[in-house]
């Protein structure tokens, strides 16, 4: 079997997999960017359900851990670009916090399921691209292995 054929079979097997991804969007940039994506009718996969928070820096790492242990296939955190935080410097804290969290998650093989992205209020197109990218990456990874473990 060639590499290409292998790939096709793998895709078919995972074809039915519709990941459930949790998104945290900051109110000022990324949520507004998501609104703009909708207004501009950019189409993206419906797999990411977003929760609006005022600032990305208020995303408690516990929420992310809880989501992953509760079976979310991925978690996206999106905030203002560095330097553009509505609250001056919140996103710098987000950046450090998520980096630390991903380091811990490496031990459990979950670190690739957490995404941190910067999307501004004017980047509707980018928002759609980010959601597409994240969804495809999770489809490639397959379901959260911990979900299965809990199910058994």
């Amino acid at each position, binding site marked *: 079997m060639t590499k290409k054929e292998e790939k096709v079979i793998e895709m078919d097997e995972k074809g039915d997999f519709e990941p459930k991804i949790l998104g945290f969007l900051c109110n*000022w940039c990324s949520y507004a960017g998501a609104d703009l994506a909708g207004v501009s009718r950019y189409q993206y996969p419906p797999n990411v359900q977003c929760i609006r*928070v*005022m600032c990305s820096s208020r995303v408690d790492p516990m929420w992310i851990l809880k989501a992953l242990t509760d079976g979310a296939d991925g978690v996206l955190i999106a905030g203002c670009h560095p330097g553009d935080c509505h*609250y001056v410097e919140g996103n710098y804290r987000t950046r450090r916090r998520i980096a630390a969290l991903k380091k811990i998650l490496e031990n459990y093989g979950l670190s690739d399921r957490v995404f941190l992205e910067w999307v501004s209020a004017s980047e509707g197109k980018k928002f*759609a691209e980010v959601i597409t990218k994240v969804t495809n990456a999770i489809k490639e990874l397959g379901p959260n292995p911990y979900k299965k473990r809990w199910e058994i």
Partner: protein
Amino acid sequence: MKLNGESPKIGVYICECGINISATVNVEKVVEYARTLPNVTVSRYYKYMCSDPGQALIKKDIKELGVDRVVVASCSPRMHEPTFRAVLEDAGLNPYCFEMANIREHCSWAHAHEKEKATEKAKDLVRMAVAKAKLLRPLEKKEVPVIRTALVIGGGISGIQAALEVANKGIKTYLVERSPSIGGRMAQLDKTFPTLDCSACILTPKMVDVARHPDIELLTYSIVEKVDGYIGNFKVTVRKKARYVDIDKCVGCGRCAEACRLKGRVDDEFNENLGKRSAIYVPFPQAVPLKYTIDPNKCIYLKTGKCGEFPPCKKACEANAINHEQKDEVVELDVGTIIVATGYDLFDPTEKPEYGYGKSNRVITGLEFERLVSSSGPTGGHIEIDGKEPKKVVFIQCVGSRDRKGNEYCSRVCCMYTAKHAHLVREKVRGAELTVYYTDVRAFGKGFEEFYNRVKDEGISYMRRELDDPIEVVEKDGKVVVKADGHPDIEADLVVLATAIIQRKDIGGLAKVLRISQGADRFFLEVHPKLRPMDTATRGIFLAGCCQGPKDIPDTVAQASGAAARAAIPILHGKIDLDPQTSEVIDKNCDGCAYCIDPCPYKALTLIEYMRDGAIKKTVEANEALCQGCGVCQATCPKQGIIVRGFTLEQISAMVQALLGVT
């Protein structure tokens, strides 16, 4: 108001939004699904939930069914959250017992071709909102007084108009301008399209009005360095740069500039460096205030500590106004609202070397042409290059705009100012041959098309070229040759580039100070492009003029008047509601570790000690007025000792669990 404590009655209202939602999401299925969710008392759908009859449905259920938590699944909360909160308030329910699920922008519009999946997503979003709604608690709004002063940043036509309009409402207004005079770009213009009235003649009376106005305090040669606080109570730090001239003594006679040893040797920015000035100067004769300023980067005395035996400017000044020892002064202003009117820069055509700008003095920008043709300009209004009138002039449009690799936007004013320039050359230079290279003439404003037709009829040839077609301007034998693809070469005496309006190159600092965002085009971003074009996402800060996007003078003046009206509203009200969704310390959980204090960007948290049960208890105290509700404290706290109302740990956790189907 009654609330059903532990077993709230939730009403869920799904909006069809005409067909914006219902064409993709099966609204009836979502309604049916919502009825199965815990604590949901009633679930309905309607064509337009935000309309009067839609609102009446909600009010009726609150009154008749005792609904005490409301979930509306419709558009973005950034759009209609305030609308629905008001509905709850009208019906006697606390407005914060409300949650919104965004099934339009985030669902129906984004998944238009996946109806079933979109319907499932809408169900998820509703389930998450219901889970949060169950845990919502009533919150009390906090009212704070608004300081009765306003600040306008930028003294061009937009800032002038805004300051006059605010001050005319009887509100004390500070106008801060960073250059030595107000007037801005409009002061540099010769005539204005399409009416051809003289720019200075309509601008300078307004400048004088500003100076004379009893309620306007003018701070020129000053920079806004810091903005703290919030709507109603901003604290603004302004640096008044040293002019090295006492403005109370200076009478503006100009003898100092005559005496300056650098007279006629310093590049004159007001004339786009086409003319020369002294090291002590006023930007232009009609400057307001008419007070001289020493250029610290040029003045010999300031640079070397010595200028001949005795500085000649000081010797010449009879009013004894010159003070080389003057220092910057930092002042603090307390203001209720802020209008940003910082104007624009011009695209630098050296970024596109094909236009030959910078290689030949015969290629100039639109603004340079304005100074060249202005009677107050370096040539006294004679159009001349190297002392000779140009007989063949070529105008090239869309330089630095409508460029998919650079500034994609249309700069909006260039078509008309080019038509005006061509007309002015026609008027002043007999027998001149004039060519305009254009791509599309955008004559959209009042009187624009008429003006364009008039100019064309004056024998000015308009030649069309595609934007992507190659064009090159090269110097040859004391002339410049314009080689445009598909057109014969033109040997011209002068080429005028219609350079685009761009955001101020150094605006980043101010954007950070004000905490307002910029779009992809770098212009300041308005909250809503259609319905709130003057508001920024930061409450109490408004936009006027070209800092928000390219505009002509009438649009700028209109927007400035609008921004002034917007900025005056909270001030005239005298008080403002602050969002109660701020931090709250849970004293029983807080052990005073103070981890949260350092991350708080507003210094809203302090560590305190008090006596409890005979022992010292450390805890953190939150200042509601300073807190902006970002919640960094909540995510930092390892002990659940501080929460942000409306976004508590339990509320968000409940949403996460609802999404994942965990109960």
